[in-house]
Structures are given as C-alpha cells and as structure tokens.
C-alpha cells in the first residue's frame, strides 16, 4: 500500500473528516518512486482504471479500501512517464467513464478530456508554455477553392513575428492544424522556438479535414490537394523558399500517414517529414488486425514497404512506447534508412496523445529546420 494511504489507515478505517482532510491536502495520483497509486472516492459497485497502455490491462480494477468509499490500485510506471487515464465507475449495473475527480491535471483532445498522470521525473517542457517575452507570430485564416474536394477548404496560416515580404521562408504543412494549436500548443511552440533561434522563422499552413479518417488514410485526393492546390496557393500568397528541403509536412496518427503518403505520391516536392505516432498499419501476411478505417492505410503501407522510393530527404519520427503503434513505427525506421533517407526516431514514455506529440515538437522541428542558433553568438 502507498505510504500515505498506509498512514491514513494505520488505526483502521478513517473517519469521514480525516478522509476529507487527506483528500484536500494530497496530490493525486499518489506517486511514490515508480509506484503510482490511483485513488477514487465515491459510492460504486466497481471502479476500473482505464489508461489504454499497450502492455497493461485495459481495465484494471481498483480495490475498495475497507468501509470508506475509497478505492485504489497501484501500477508501476518508469521514471519520466506520462500517461492519460480515466476511471470507469459502475453504479446500478451501469458503467461510466469519468476523469479523476481528485486530479485537476487534464489533457484535452478532440474527444474530450483525460486525466493526466505524470510519473516521477516528468516535467512539462518550458518551451511549450506561453512566454510573454517571445515575439508572437500571427494566425491568419484563408480559404482555398478545392477542385479535388469539390468545395472550399479553410486553413489557418501561421506567419512568424517580424514577417517581411522581401524574405523567403520555409513552409510547414500541418495536418490537424486546429488540434495541434489547441491541444499541443503549436503556436506557443513555434513562437518560442523561433524566438530562441532554434528554428528559423517559418510559415505554417494549418489544415483540417472534415473527414480525416478517410482523407488522411492514404487518400490520393488528399495527396493531390497538398501538391496541386495547397502548395501553389501558399507559394503565390507567401514568399517561400522554392526548394524541397524548405518544405515540410507533419502530422500525428492518421495525420502521419497522410504526410508520408502525400510525400510518397509527390516525390521531390517535400524534403522534410515530421511523423508522430503514425498509424502505419501493415500486414506481413493475411489481413491487418485493426479496424476497417485502417484498410486503405494497410494497403498503402504494404505497397510502401515494397517500394518506398524517396518520399523525403529527412524524416523525424516519434512514438510513445505505451502505444500499440510502437511496433509499426519501429519497423518503418530501417526501411526508410535503407533508402538513404536520413531518419531520426525518438521514443517517449508516453502514449497516443497530444501532449506526447507536443513534447516532441522541439526535437523534431529543430532537427528538420535548424535555426540560426548555430550562427548567433551574443
């Protein structure tokens, strides 16, 4: 038992007031070295910890602690880990997923919020936080009339601070741009990294899809949209460096697939790829074991693994080791390297979520787009 809980229970089941005081003055979950204890307080028939970590039980039961309405379970989490979780609470035979009421730290994603457990040694990187001292870039809204998708497509364009029309800038295309802004602090990250000279001032095209599982799932229409519509639009609207090495595409999950697929379909156009937890499902034999949304992805990945070509000169990949996708991502690295592509692959003690992707942005962006730090000696 966690030492704090042991102390609370040292004279048997504590009184309600003692639990109130304990809950008020304690941070949850309880981190004791690599042991992390999740605590739930409330009336329930059963409580489960749900953290979707590859390698752990999907639903780990919490034990009721005496006659106290307290429930707890302990798991081992290596140093520096960060996981997201929910409690599944069963009352009157119904199960409900809730965030941890005792933990204020939440991570948001397009599906809502999850509670965050930061194991011993994890710290949110300072460059992901808003820095009032960093000169702020600007977000502009634009629209493209898309022939490929037969309709208008809205995008946001990040324009760096001190933008000058007589300069030329690298271009970064960001899949799920709105989510990167909202859940991975992308604007603050770009502002901070540019301010710190770790990346050059760049223009980012933040795109969104109304049907991402289709369009980002190795859809040729999307590859054409990037190459034939978005790129020309950006090139005529902004002063861009007209070279593949100064054009990058990034994305997470299905956005990673869309990035790789678009570069593969348009060889020589995009020199840099940043792929985070790419959903690179494939099958060596038989059918892949994932859902129907992955059918087109697996078809593409199988073809890609046979004939990777040269989608880009440099590829930064990252993946959480608590993701089931770690296998696919690891497998892809040597295949890309065998093509002479310069690959940097980073694993993190994290899972398939936006904060994992946020925390890897510095290494990825500064490697693909090195800033003038190398030239600046203050």
């Amino acid at each position, binding site marked *: 038992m966690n030492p704090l809980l042991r102390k609370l229970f040292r004279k048997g089941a504590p009184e309600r007031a003692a639990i109130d005081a304990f809950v008020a003055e304690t941070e949850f979950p309880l981190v004791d070295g690599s042991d992390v204890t999740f605590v739930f307080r409330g009336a329930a028939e059963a409580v489960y910890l749900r953290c979707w970590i590859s390698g752990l039980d999907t639903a780990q039961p919490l034990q009721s602690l005496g006659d106290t309405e307290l429930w707890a379970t302990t798991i081992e989490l290596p140093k520096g880990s960060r996981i997201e979780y929910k409690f599944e609470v069963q009352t009157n035979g119904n199960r409900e997923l809730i965030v941890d009421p005792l933990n204020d730290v939440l991570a948001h994603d397009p599906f809502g919020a999850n509670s965050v457990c930061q194991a011993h040694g994890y710290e949110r990187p300072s460059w992901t936080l808003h820095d009032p001292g960093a000169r702020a870039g600007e977000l502009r809204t634009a629209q493209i009339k898309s022939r490929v998708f037969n309709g208008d497509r809205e995008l946001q364009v990040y324009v760096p601070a*001190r933008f000058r029309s*007589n300069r*030329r800038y690298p271009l970064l295309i960001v899949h799920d741009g709105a989510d990167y802004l909202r859940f991975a602090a992308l604007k603050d990250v770009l502002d901070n990294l540019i301010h710190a000279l*770790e990346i050059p001032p760049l223009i980012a095209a933040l795109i969104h899809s109304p049907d991402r599982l289709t369009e980002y799932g190795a859809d040729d229409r999307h590859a054409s949209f990037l190459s034939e519509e978005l790129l020309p639009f950006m090139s005529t609207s902004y002063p861009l460096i007209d070279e593949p090495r100064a054009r990058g595409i990034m994305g997470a999950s299905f956005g990673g697939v869309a990035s790789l697929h678009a570069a593969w379909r348009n060889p020589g156009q995009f020199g840099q790829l940043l792929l985070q937890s790419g959903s690179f499902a494939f099958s060596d034999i038989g059918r892949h074991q994932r859902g129907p949304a992955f059918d087109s992805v697996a078809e593409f990945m199988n073809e890609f693994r046979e004939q990777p070509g040269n989608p880009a000169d440099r590829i930064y990949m990252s993946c959480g080791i608590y993701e089931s996708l770690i296998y696919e991502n690891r497998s892809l690295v040597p295949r890309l390297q065998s093509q002479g592509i310069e690959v940097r692959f980073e694993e993190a003690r994290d899972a398939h979520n936006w904060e994992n992707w946020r925390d890897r942005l*510095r*290494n990825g962006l*500064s*490697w693909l787009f*090195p800033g*003038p*730090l*190398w*030239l*600046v*000696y*203050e």
Partner: protein
Amino acid sequence: MSSAGQIRVLLGPQSPQQNIAEAVAEAGLPAGPLAVISAAWQEAEGDIDVISKLLGRELEDLYLYRRGEELMANHPELEAAARLRQHKLMDRQRMYRIRLKQLSIAARHMLKENGDSELVASEQRHAIAQLRALDRHHLHRSESIWRDFCDAYNPDSYPELARQAQELGEIFDRCAGVVITGGNVAILINRMRLFGIDEQLEKCNIVAWSAGAMALAERVVLFHDRSPEGRRDAEVLGAGCGVIPGYVFLPNTKQRLRTGDRLRVELLSRRFSPDTCVALDNGAALRLDDSGVQQANTVRRLNHDGRFVKLRAA
C-alpha cells in the same frame, strides 16, 4: 581614427556580466565618439542605449543592416545577386558538412587509438591534416564565391554603394574607434563585406564581443555542442576580416562547448593550429596590439592536450 598602434579589445558575451566599460577604460582608448556596428542584431540594430550609458561616450551606429536592406529594396538585381551568392554559399557549406562529418569521425577515432605510439601519432597527424585540408578547401571555395559577387557589385561600378561607403568612411574618420557587437556572425560578415568595412577596420581601434570578435579573425569557426538538434562538428563558415590573424575566437564556450570532453577540445585545438583557439566567456577581456597579447583577464585557450589553460600576456 588612428592609423598605427591600434588597440583591439575582445570580450566574451555581455550578459549576464557586462565588462565592456571596464575593458575600454583599461585599454586607454582615445577620447571621442565611437562608431558601432550592431548589424549582427538585424532588426534590433541600433538599440545601443545600454552600451552608450555604460561607456559614457557618444556612439554612432553605422546601420549596416538597415543600409543593406534599403539598398536591396532599391536594387532588385543586387538583391537577386546577393541571394544567389547566399544560395551558393549555403550549398557549399552543406557539401562541406557532409565531408566534414566523415573526416571528423575518423579523426576522433584516431585520437582514441592506443598502441604503438609512433604509428598512432603519425595516423593522428594525418587524420587531422585531412580535416585541415578540407577546411582550407572550403575556405578557398567560399572566398571565390564572394570574389565573384564583389567583382560584380563594388563601389567602383555601383554608385550607390560608393556613396554609402563614403558616408561610412566619414563616420569612421570622426570616431576614436569602433565597437562591434555580438549577434549573427554570418549577417555581420555579409554586411561588413558589402560595404567594404572589413578593409577599413585595419586602421581602427576596435572593441568587439562574441560574434564581433569572431569576425575579426582570419577564419570564422562555428560551433555548438548543445543545440537541440544535437552535437555538431565545428565548421569553418568562411573568412573573417583578418584584422587579428593567428587566433580563432570561440565565444561562450561554457554554454556552447562540452568543455570537459578532452578529445573534442583536443581535436578543435589541433585542427585549427597554428592558430590559437581562444575561449571568450562572459567576463573575459583580451587586449592585443601589434606586438601581441597585452592583457588577458579570465581568458582561456584550448590546449592540444584537450584542456583549457589560461592565456597569458606576452
């Protein structure tokens, strides 16, 4: 401005500790206004109130960055030529880097070798000689790109440049010396060369820190062992003004270099020998004149055995 027995004061970064006022006072710089080259600050060029207050002197910024921007805006053909030059230089740097990586790996491996001391020493010398040859080759190639540009766009053939050069010369004439700030060393070199300032510095008293000091050597060497993109091998960017031959200036080594990695330090020191690699950290002040080092306060040099040792006055 003086023409003989010029004073050169070289400093480390002026943050957190500022020692420029103390160093200028100790150097005995003649009274009078000082010209300032703060082009390395780019858009923040001319923001020199703090230095002015510290020095208690009238300062006059040359605004080389702004002048360059205006010149380019008024003359698209010049801008295109400058862009082409930069493109070629960057391409050259990229190719140099590819070759440098392999030679540096080989040299580091050689420096780790034990065994027959004569054999090992000979191979080590050869590995380092290859690095030096590559550095020389790169320097030579980069200079030829610059020469082509300068031949086409010089004050003789370009009246506006001639007018600017004359204005700058007049500022130099009424100043007792020039202060060159830190910042982006590539921008600094570019702007100084564009306006021919590099040639005028020979006759000036100079106070320079960080990038400003780097630009005064014959070779500008870039280095950073702790950048987020990872450790890189030191690179020759190109020629400096050459006002202070025999040295390679490395500012802020405590932050930028893995100073405890004796093998890296040894390689750096031996690779750029016979030039002396001088570490200019915050608080360092080095004063030189025609006869060599006159004063060296908390200035260290990189030794061939991989250690940092105190640089002493002659």
